[in-house]
Structure formats: structure tokens, C-alpha cells
């Protein structure tokens, strides 16, 4: 072959080895954040930054909710029993409540809740004066500041209502939410378990076991999801990777009975996987766990070129190696390019996860191909001996039936009917679950915690924009007035917004007029009881958002106050409410962000779009085949088409949710399936060896992809089922349409 290619590839390979040494000695950064797999919002950069802000604030926290008869004591037991360096307790904010009180106290005349405003507007001064005196008479009626300042104790009431936003309260040195105690920990270092050991879970489970069995313990937090994902991915990478490798080694050994072909094919596969990993890291900075799982299947795909080479060598032992490879190259190149094209189709979707998979796989295939082309003839000295297994296998080709005429028509009709029946059973499902796969017990615990401590929905929120702080707050208040209607119709439990704490400047002045009016009226009614020198009403400046955010409680609201917009978080919005929220976008500066809905509609659009495009894909591939095979081109394409239809029908029969990922799998099937047809047509005179090569390649490919079906991530599972069934069928059907050469 071309010695310059060999030299260039050797240089690249050396760089690759160096990079791999760096990666495996600690330089490899693996991403486990499931958010990274999700498509970015197509509409708004701001929505993205809001989401990332919300996610970042909790990315290292593990929370434990202890519920039971004696939750405070049980929680202390849990703390004592938790023995791990990885989890550091987050100290209770020191006198956070007092700090907030001090910060807001100078502005108390400007702060009223909605309920207070409504009540004060209707109550008579007489009733208010009586209430003031009654409040004084209670044994525990201690108050903040002078009676005459705030005779109705409106400020403490305001704070109490604000405190309801979160159900979590420090009580006697512990964080309580109702009857439950909340423990918070911060993960030290990374929660990633690349070795597959669930360290956090083990430590937390051990501490759980130390408690009374009656005590209910819910454990949640992003690090636990990350750990579960990496443990799961670790197992799946091993299953898929080693399973495929074992299959290749077994097949190679059976077919060639000699270490050289085995070692060289494994070398081509390893160079492919290494190149895929290196390029992924160079382009994306890090590699996602799901890419590794999917990438493990590359082992079973990238071996095709090497196998093909050795199958030809075995069949034509006398032919010169370099010349043989030259003869094989056009077919191999076409096969490689169609496969790469299939992966490129994954990359055009807006899903970062799929882009990584595509880059990883496309690079890997190209590298494995380059290894075969540049090195095999040099390294493969000596003979490739005949084996019984290979001869038997190649021999089956002659006995394989060929469909022609009436047989062909009948077969097509029967297959078409069965496939149609299955396709009709397909149930499309485009929600985000396809991308996520977390253990149900973790999801349940997370839901329990969110309910008990009153966490807002993370995927749906409003963004409110304005030119300045005052406008932003005023627009948010306008939005809240509309949301209040949802709350009173019970379509929404509540919401969190900065303007609940800091009213707009205009609202602050309104509130001040109300509080001063009420104060004057009450003091007037009680003037007989009171000293003559009533102190002057409080003078206050405009309360600014910054004042609130500087307190440790207010700091928790920072994700709601972005540089360019406010975020209004929603508590338990009903489906009905979610469908109506978009109408609120008519308000100035208001935008509704529905992540779950956005992703679902995006996945649906892409599912439909990629299905339509698949037709174009077939046309293009057919054109490419026509260019080389002319009127025989259909013979290479038809098996793939039938296999695709049946693979989808199988998904329908299995009752699995049909998603974008099945369609993408069909793209890969198209890309790889035609390879088998190409090989058989390309070597029409050497059917036996081509059939052996196709068979060996197909078995390892279908095993690799089939193993993806074990993945608990729906997306990967979808690829596995479709490709496992599809590749098997393409392989078995390919010879049906390629007539054997005339016996000479």
C-alpha cells in the first residue's frame, strides 16, 4: 500500500497513544450530569442560564429527610452513624433569621402581604383597635419594637407568611420541615464513581440501618443521581465492551485458529475506540458516561474491516497482500463512509449527547479503517491458514436460497403485511424519560423530599424581564396577580418570587400609605390610654433587592434574580395550569419556560423530521449504490429496508414506547446494513469469503448492539433493540437477493 499513509498513520497513532496515557493517568474527565445530554433550549439563552443556575446551586448537596415518631433524636443517630469522609455536614446558618429581621426591620412600613392588604382595606378602625389590645393581652405577645410603631404586628405576620415559602425551619439546632428533620451534606470532591462503587449510597444505607425500622429516611440530591448513573454506566460499559470483545475473540479464533489475525483485528478495534475517545475529549473537553456506554458498541462495529481483510486472505492465500488490500479498498471505503454518514445523522440533532456518540463512533470507524489500510499488509506476514469452521461457514452461502420471481413477490407481500401490523401498534412517546434513567427508589425519595420541604418544580418557571429593578418587580407583581387566580382555583399550590419579599417601589409606597393610615387610626382610637407624645412615623427608604440577597436567607433567592431577568418558580402546577400558562406571555416582559414540554415537543419534531428525512437517506444511499452497481443496486438496499420495517414492527409488538431514538437507530441500520450488501455485490466472484466476512462482522455487530438493549437508559435500549433485530435480519437476508455466480 501507500508507504506515506503508513508513515502518517504511525505518527498519528503515536500521538494517540501519548494522549491515551495522559487520559488514563487521571486526565480523563467524565461527565455524568444528565442535563448535559438534554438538548439546549432552542428559543432562549436566558432560560438556559436560569436552569443552569438552579442546577448549580444544588449540584453538590445531598439531603436526608428523617421522618418518624422521634425524628430529632433519630436524626442525631443518623448523623453519628454516617461514617464517610465524602459527606460533610452543612452547618446551620448562624442566626440567619435574626440577620434577615435586622435587614428588613428598617423597611417594615413598606412590607405587606396580599392577605394583609385585603384585610386592612375592609376592617374598621374600631375592630383594628380591639384586635391590637387583644394581641397585647396574650401571655406570649412579645413584640418587636414599640407598640405604637406597629400596633397590629403586621411586620411579624409578613415575615411569618414569607417563611411559609419553605417548610424548613431551624428548631433547637436542627432543620425541621413539619415533623421531619432535614440533614444537609456537601459532597467532598467528585461524586463520580468511575470504579463502579456506590460509595455514597453504601455509607448512607449503613447509617439508615442504624435507625429504628419505624423511622422513614428519604435520601436525595444530585450527587446520588450522578453516582447511580455512573455505577450503572460502569456496569453497562463493561457488559457491552467486554461482551463484544469476547465475541470477537471467539469468532476470530474459530475462523482463523491463529493469534495473528486475532491480535491485528483487536488492534484495529482498540485504535478505533482510543481515537474516538481522544477526539471526543479534544472537542468536548470531557466525555459523557452515555457516550462511553454507546461507544462500547463500537468494538463490534469497527472490527468489520479487519475481518474482511483476513477472510479474503484466507480465501486467496496465494495473492500478494498489498495487491489484495488494494482490491478490497473501494468496497471497504464505501462501507466505512456509509457507516460514518449514518453516525453523522445522529449529530445533526440538537442533542449534545448524540453529537458526542456520533463523533466518537465516526472517528472510531475511520481510525479502525486507517489501521487496516496502513498497517495490516506490513504486520501480517506469513500465511493465513484454512480452518474447518471458515470453510463450513463459507460453504453455507452456496446453500442459501435466492429469491426470484414469484417467490420474491410472495415473500415481500407476507413480510409487508406482518410489518404493517406491527407498525400500526407503535406508540410514540416523546418525553424526557427517554434520556434519563434513574433508579425508581431515588426518584421516589426525591419526590417525597420535594413534597415535604416544599420544593418548587425545577422544569417549569416564568422569566420576567424589565429595564430596571423597579420595572422587573412591577412586571413580576402583574404576573403574580394572574398566578394568584390559578392558586385560588387550586390549579397551582404556590410560587416563589423575589417581589414577594421586595415589593416594587410603587407597591412599597402603597403599602406605606396603608400601614401609616392603619397606625394613625388605631392610635387615634386608643388615644385615651396612650401617652400624649406619639413618636413620629418611621422614615424609610426604598427597599432594594440587594439588601435582601445579602442576608443568608435571602442568598437562597439568588437563582430567582438573574442579571437580566427574574425567575418565578412554581409549586405543583397542574397539567391544566401548564397548558394555560403560555397565555400569560401576553404580559409585558413575561415568558413561560416549560423544559419538559419543550424537550418533548422537540423530540417529537425530530422524530417526525428524521423519519421523513430517512426517505431522503434511502434515496441518497441508493444513488451512491447506483453509481457503483447500477441495476444491481437494489439488491444491496432491499434487505436493509425490510429489516428496518420488521425491527420497528418488533418494537410495536413488544409494546415499547416509540421514540426519536428508534428512528436514529434506523439511520445506523441503513448505514451499516448496506455494507453487507455492498460486500456481497462487490465480490460477486468470491461469494464464499465475502459471506464469511459479512457473517463474522454481522455476528459481532449484532452482539455489540444487542448488548445495548440491556441498558436501563431508554435511549440506548431503543438503539439496542432496533439494531440487534435489524442487523440480524439484514445479515440473514442479504444473500437472498444476490444470485450466486454461474458455475463455470
Amino acid at each position, binding site marked *: 500500500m501507500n508507504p506515506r499513509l503508513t508513515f502518517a498513520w504511525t505518527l498519528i497513532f503515536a500521538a494517540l497513544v501519548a494522549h491515551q496515557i495522559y487520559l488514563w493517568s487521571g486526565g480523563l474527565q467524565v461527565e455524568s450530569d444528565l442535563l448535559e445530554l438534554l438538548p439546549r433550549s432552542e428559543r432562549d439563552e436566558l432560560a438556559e442560564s436560569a436552569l443552569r443556575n438552579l442546577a448549580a446551586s444544588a449540584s453538590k448537596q445531598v439531603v436526608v429527610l428523617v421522618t418518624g415518631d422521634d425524628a430529632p433524636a433519630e436524626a442525631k443517630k443518623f448523623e453519628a452513624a454516617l461514617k464517610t469522609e465524602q459527606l460533610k455536614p452543612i452547618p446551620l446558618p448562624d442566626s440567619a433569621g435574626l440577620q434577615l429581621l435586622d435587614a428588613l426591620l428598617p423597611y417594615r412600613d413598606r412590607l405587606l402581604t396580599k392577605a394583609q392588604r385585603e384585610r386592612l382595606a375592609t376592617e374598621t378602625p374600631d375592630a383594628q383597635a*380591639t384586635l391590637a389590645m387583644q394581641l*397585647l393581652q*396574650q401571655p406570649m405577645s412579645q413584640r418587636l419594637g414599640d407598640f405604637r410603631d406597629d400596633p397590629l404586628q403586621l411586620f411579624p405576620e409578613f415575615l*411569618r407568611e414569607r417563611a411559609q415559602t419553605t417548610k424548613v425551619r431551624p428548631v433547637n439546632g436542627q432543620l425541621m420541615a*413539619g415533623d421531619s428533620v432535614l440533614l444537609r451534606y456537601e459532597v467532598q470532591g467528585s461524586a463520580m464513581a468511575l470504579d463502579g462503587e456506590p460509595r455514597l449510597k453504601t455509607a448512607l444505607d449503613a447509617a439508615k440501618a442504624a435507625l429504628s425500622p419505624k423511622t422513614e429516611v428519604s435520601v436525595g440530591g444530585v450527587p446520588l443521581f450522578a453516582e447511580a448513573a455512573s455505577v450503572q454506566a460502569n456496569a453497562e460499559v463493561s457488559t457491552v465492551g467486554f461482551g463484544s470483545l469476547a465475541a470477537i475473540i471467539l469468532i476470530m479464533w474459530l475462523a482463523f485458529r491463529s493469534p495473528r489475525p486475532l491480535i491485528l483485528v483487536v488492534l484495529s478495534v482498540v485504535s478505533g475506540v482510543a481515537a474516538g475517545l481522544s477526539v471526543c475529549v479534544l472537542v468536548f473537553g470531557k466525555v459523557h458516561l452515555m457516550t462511553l456506554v454507546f461507544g462500547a458498541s463500537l468494538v463490534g462495529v469497527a472490527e468489520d474491516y479487519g475481518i474482511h481483510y483476513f477472510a479474503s486472505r484466507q480465501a486467496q492465500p496465494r495473492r500478494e497482500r498489498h495487491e489484495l488490500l488494494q482490491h478490497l479498498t473501494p468496497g471497504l471505503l464505501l462501507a466505512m463512509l456509509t457507516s460514518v454518514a449514518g453516525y453523522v445523522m445522529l449529530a445533526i440533532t440538537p442533542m449534545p449527547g448524540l453529537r458526542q456518540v456520533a463523533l466518537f463512533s465516526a472517528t472510531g470507524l475511520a481510525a479502525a479503517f486507517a489501521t487496516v489500510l496502513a498497517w495490516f499488509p506490513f504486520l501480517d506476514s506469513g500465511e493465513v491458514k484454512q480452518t474447518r469452521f471458515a470453510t463450513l461457514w463459507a460453504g453455507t452461502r452456496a446453500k442459501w436460497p435466492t429469491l426470484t420471481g414469484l417467490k420474491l413477490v410472495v415473500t415481500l407481500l407476507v413480510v409487508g403485511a406482518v410489518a404493517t401490523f406491527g407498525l400500526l401498534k407503535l406508540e410514540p412517546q416523546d418525553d424526557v424519560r427517554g434520556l434519563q434513567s434513574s433508579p425508581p427508589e431515588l426518584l421516589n425519595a426525591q419526590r417525597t423530599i420535594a413534597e415535604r420541604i416544599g420544593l418548587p418544580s425545577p422544569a417549569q418557571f416564568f422569566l420576567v424581564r424589565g429595564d430596571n429593578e423597579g420595572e422587573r418587580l412591577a412586571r413580576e407583581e402583574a404576573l403574580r396577580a394572574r398566578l394568584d387566580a390559578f392558586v385560588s382555583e387550586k390549579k397551582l399550590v404556590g410560587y416563589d418570587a423575589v417581589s414577594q419579599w421586595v415589593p416594587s417601589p410603587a407597591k412599597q409606597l402603597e403599602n406605606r400609605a396603608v400601614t401609616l393610615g392603619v397606625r394613625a387610626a388605631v392610635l387615634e382610637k386608643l388615644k385615651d390610654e*396612650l401617652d400624649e407624645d406619639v413618636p413620629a412615623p418611621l422614615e424609610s427608604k426604598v427597599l432594594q433587592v440587594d439588601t435582601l440577597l445579602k442576608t443568608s436567607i435571602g442568598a437562597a433567592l439568588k437563582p430567582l434574580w438573574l442579571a437580566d431577568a427574574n425567575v418565578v418558580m412554581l409549586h405543583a402546577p397542574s397539567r391544566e395550569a401548564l397548558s394555560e400558562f403560555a397565555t400569560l406571555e401576553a404580559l409585558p416582559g413575561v415568558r413561560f419556560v416549560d423544559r419538559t414540554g419543550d424537550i418533548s415537543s422537540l423530540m417529537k419534531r425530530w422524530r417526525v423530521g428524521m423519519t421523513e428525512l430517512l426517505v431522503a437517506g434511502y434515496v441518497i444511499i441508493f444513488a451512491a449504490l447506483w453509481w457503483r452497481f447500477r441495476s444491481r443496486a437494489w439488491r444491496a438496499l432491499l434487505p436493509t429496508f425490510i429489516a428496518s420495517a420488521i425491527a420497528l414492527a418488533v418494537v410495536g409488538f413488544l409494546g415499547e414506547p416509540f421514540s426519536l431514538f428508534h428512528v436514529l437507530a434506523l439511520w445506523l441500520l441503513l448505514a451499516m446494513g448496506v455494507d453487507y450488501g455492498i460486500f456481497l455485490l462487490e465480490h460477486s466472484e468470491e461469494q464464499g469469503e465475502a459471506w464469511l466476512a459479512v457473517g463474522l462482522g454481522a455476528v459481532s455487530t449484532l452482539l455489540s448492539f444487542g448488548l445495548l438493549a440491556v441498558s436501563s437508559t431508554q435511549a440506548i435500549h431503543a438503539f439496542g433493540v432496533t439494531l440487534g433485530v435489524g442487523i440480524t435480519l439484514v445479515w440473514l437476508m442479504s444473500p437472498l437477493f444476490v444470485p450466486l455466480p454461474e458455475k463455470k
Partner: protein
Amino acid sequence: MNTALLLLALAAEPTLAEQVKAKLADKAVITGTFDQSKQVKGFKRPLKSSGTYEVKRGVGVTWKTLAPFASELTVSADQIRSTQDGAEVFALDAKTEPTVRVITQLLFSLLAGDLNALSSHFEATGSVTGKDWLIELKPKPGPLEKIFLRISLKGDSAVRSVHMQEQSGDATLISLTPN
């Protein structure tokens, strides 16, 4: 050597809480009448009120004001509820507002003279002479410090008076007459 002896002697001395507990009659239910005089800054005269009270161990406190306004305050471990002529004036529930427990526990401990419970929020000093005892409570750093300057408790076999001095300058003296 001397130090060790001294420490031993100190250890043998019963704590203030134990001493007070020893004086208090061990009754599951305490009932009686109260007179409250509240000096509120800005008012010409102290605000006086009176009524009856009931402290049930492990259950809670009922504080029934008869004059000048009839009203009732019921305090259980999980709830504070104030009613007037049967109509609710306000109610705080520990389920939604866990800090309510701090208040309910405080009121209960003050009226029952439970020094052990009080010591989680206050520094207690005091003396015991004969059957009488006197305790001064100073709030530990925390939310209560914002409200109370100090609280004095006096009593014998029961709590006789609670004197609360507040940061705001107000002061409340509650005299208790157990039945």
C-alpha cells in the same frame, strides 16, 4: 488534692434544676387563677387582665382571660390557637410552622417551672431558701435574645410569678394562684 475534693463536693451538690424540681409538687394537672399586669411603652397605665389557667403535663396549657376581654388561648405541643367567643383570632400550627414548638414549649416550661427544658434557651441562675425558690433566666444567643431581656420565676410547690422583661422596653408580670 484539694481541687479534687472540691470537684467532688460540687458534683455532689444537686443542680439548681434538681433542687427546684424537688420543691415543686409533682402534679399532672395544675389549675388556678392569674393576674397579669403588662407595662407597655407608650401606655399611660399598665394593662391589666385576669382569668384562669390550666397546665396539663404532656398535653398543654389553656389560658382563659375573663377580663377585660374574654378570650381563650390553647397551647398544645403542636398548635397555638386563640379564640374569642368561639371564633378563631389566630392559629399557628407546628406542621406548617415548626418554630411554634419553641413558643409552646417555652410557655409550658415557664408555667410548669421545668428548668431542664428552659435551659436549652436560657442561662439560669437562682437560689433556694426554705420552701421558696427564685430563678433568673437570661436568653442564650438566638432568636429569643431579640425579644427577652430576662425572665424571673418565683415559686414554692408551684410557680407563683413570671416576670418577663422585654427588649422593646415592655414588661409583663403574671401572678399565679394555684387552686
